[in-house]
């Protein structure tokens, strides 16, 4: 019984593959339409992954509190205690005016002599804060930084909160738009695949009637078409991944100098393996669903 089922399954799978070949151009349209909707999904995964990575990276950036002039040691010490006692801050480094000038001098390199012209040290003292990596969301940091900015000792706060907030909002908006577009394109793909299967069923109408005549069950008749739909969806997924790879490499090649300039050593990631597999599974699912829709409509008639 088991070997009989395996033989039947293998036969039906070969039939489905043969149907894809025989469908020709209509199958190609189906594959391309699935690829378009899944390409969007690929871009979404890559955008989401890289923006999330950027978000994490931004939160690793240091926040700097620039202090008012002429603060006493006591005031500085009091502020330092407050900062060290804050859970969101894991490291506090005080940079005196003199130390700030020396660091600046060192960063200027050969042009350090320009600082010799200064009558006084214009640089303020500051606290350099390293944030807790567990604190990811801007809405967790914003209250803290707003509080610090209002402290009497603090002149200004330089940090990535606004940028992080914008990035986070961008992520949310981008996610919604991509999901909406993804759903629309998936429905379109489903309809195109259903139409392709419809054409295949029409083409094999005589053969199907003979299949029924010799005792093939309904599922035996349906399975090759479902396999055809799944295969078209799978090929669409592969095409989408291929196109994503092409876009990825083109983008990285064009944009890498800019990326290095802004982000330093930070790189853009391609799809992860599990995301690529999910794309293939979704493609097959859309294809299979399209076939089922087509077959159900024919049965209903």
């Amino acid at each position, binding site marked *: 019984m088991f070997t009989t089922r395996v033989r*039947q399954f293998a036969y039906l799978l070969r039939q489905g593959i043969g149907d894809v070949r025989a469908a020709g151009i209509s199958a190609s349209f189906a594959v391309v339409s699935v690829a378009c909707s899944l390409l969007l999904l690929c871009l979404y995964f890559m955008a989401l992954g890289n923006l999330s990575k950027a978000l994490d990276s931004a939160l690793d950036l240091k926040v700097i509190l620039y202090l008012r002039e002429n603060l006493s040691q006591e005031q500085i010490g009091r502020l330092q205690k407050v900062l060290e006692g804050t859970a969101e801050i894991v490291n506090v480094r005080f940079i005196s005016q003199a130390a700030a000038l020396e660091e600046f001098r060192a960063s200027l390199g050969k042009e350090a002599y320009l600082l010799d012209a200064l009558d006084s040290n214009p640089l303020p003292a500051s606290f350099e804060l390293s944030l807790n990596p567990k604190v990811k969301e801007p809405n967790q940091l914003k209250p803290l930084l707003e509080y610090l900015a209002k402290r009497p000792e603090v002149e200004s706060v330089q940090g990535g909160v606004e940028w992080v907030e914008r990035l986070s909002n961008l992520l949310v908006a981008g996610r919604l738009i991509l999901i909406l577009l993804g759903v629309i394109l998936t429905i379109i793909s489903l309809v195109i695949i259903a139409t392709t299967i419809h054409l295949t069923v029409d083409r094999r109408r005589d053969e199907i009637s003979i299949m029924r005549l010799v005792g093939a069950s309904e599922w035996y008749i349906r399975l090759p078409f479902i396999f055809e739909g799944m295969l078209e969806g799978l090929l669409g997924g592969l095409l989408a991944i291929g196109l994503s790879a092409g876009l990825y490499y083109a983008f990285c090649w064009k944009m890498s100098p800019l990326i290095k300039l802004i982000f330093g050593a930070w790189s853009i990631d391609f799809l992860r393996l599990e995301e690529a597999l999910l794309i293939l599974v979704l493609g097959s699912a859309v294809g299979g669903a399209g076939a089922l829709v087509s077959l159900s409509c024919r049965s209903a008639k």
Partner: protein
Amino acid sequence: MQSLSSLPQAPLSAIVQMFHVYKTFDGQKAALADINLRIEPGEMVFLVGPSGAGKTTLLRLIFREEKASSGQIIVNGKNVSKMKDSQICQLRRKIGVVFQDFKLIHSKTVFENVAYVLQVLGKSKSEIGRKVWSALRRVGLEHKMDVYPKRLSGGEQQRVAIARAVVNDPVLLLADEPTGNLDLDTAREVMNLFIDINIQGTTVLMATHNLRIVEEMGKRVISLREGKIVHH
């Protein structure tokens, strides 16, 4: 409608039994009216009548291509009238059917057309090879296994259809005007094939309006006119 239990008790060995079968299409005049018949195993029976008499409808009821409007139909011990869709395919695997227009798949070779039945059943490659060759040998076409139907004559195509119908050793072979598209000599050849198949034990029920050949065969005849059996 009479229940099965109230009907005359008949031995269950009959291949086909029909009890007060009616078939109406869309509320029009009955295509079949009060059909009662019984076909024993190993019989060869001709179903004759003019066009529109109901011959094809009667055959279609037997392999459940159509469902009777009322009455009971028992085929090989199973009540066809009450069958679910999932059981119909089991029924059809035991019945071979041959049509006037052959109904071959033109994109498949002679071998593949006949093998199809066995592939549906999930038979092994070796068994398929053996049975298909045997069936084609029975109809005299074992040398044309790799030919496509379009390259065959009408008589040869019908013989392929017959091979497909008998490859799985059915208990019943139905034929709907199998010689309708053939000249007289070819028709006789095809008829002789059916007789050979019948001699080897398969029950044959054939619908035809070729009375000349029916008379030559000297087999049992059921006459239909306007949906009713007029001679049995």
